């Protein structure tokens, strides 16, 4: 996919805002299924709030009729540069073509 013509493949970081379910073990299992070079991150809620607030990400816990819960969250992919500065945001719905076309432009590889 993106490796064609690209010199630097972006480092992908998947942040879970559900640390109750997504333990480090679960995250490692999940991101490992998408190949190498993907980092799964979660943490204490107060730490996650700091990160998501800085990035403008919303998340909230919601309970359902069966007594379980879900996590409502922003469905966006955010691109940050090497200096940890906001670079771009992909809104849902997500299509592979959008990333293939736009990421090289955003990262200056085209």
């Amino acid at each position: 996919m993106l490796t064609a013509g690209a010199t630097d493949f972006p480092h992908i970081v998947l942040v879970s805002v559900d640390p109750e379910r997504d333990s480090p073990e679960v995250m490692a299992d999940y991101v490992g299924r998408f190949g190498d070079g993907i980092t799964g991150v979660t943490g204490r809620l107060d730490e996650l709030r700091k990160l998501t607030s800085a990035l403008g990400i919303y998340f909230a816990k919601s309970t359902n009729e069966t007594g379980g819960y879900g996590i409502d969250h922003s469905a966006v992919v955010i691109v940050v540069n090497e200096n940890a500065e906001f670079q771009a945001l992909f809104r849902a719905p997500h299509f592979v073509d959008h990333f293939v076309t736009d990421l090289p432009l955003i990262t200056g590889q085209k």
Partner: protein
Amino acid sequence: MTRSLKLLAIGIVASACSQPVGPPLTVSDLVVLEPLAGSGIAAGYLVLENHTDLPITIEKITSPVFASVEMHETVIQDDIARMISLASLVIERQSAVVFEPGGKHLMMFDASGEIAAGVPVTLEFHDSANGLLTVATTVRSRAGLQD
């Protein structure tokens, strides 16, 4: 006499067309994925098809293997993703509902034993009009899957 036979033949065909053929509700493409390590929650995908001329309501899904089976739907609205729990599901006449990654899906909780690839699983669909539909499959590995 010939005319009578033709009329009779037409009558039989029309009658046959109005009779239900096959089961009212079918489940196909059922996949039960093993839980992610440490999560204990299995996911399920399938196609439910209503072959009748009336809506069918799935009131609940049960399994002897899991303490609870829930129907959920992931919905993205105004850039916010939400997972909605479906208390029941209506399948309109002569139509199908697809459970797939990113949309409607099953979540299965609290298995009575280890849920690993190859383990047999039975699901029971409680249909308001036609009773119980039981389907069986085996758990599928997540290896090579990206959901």
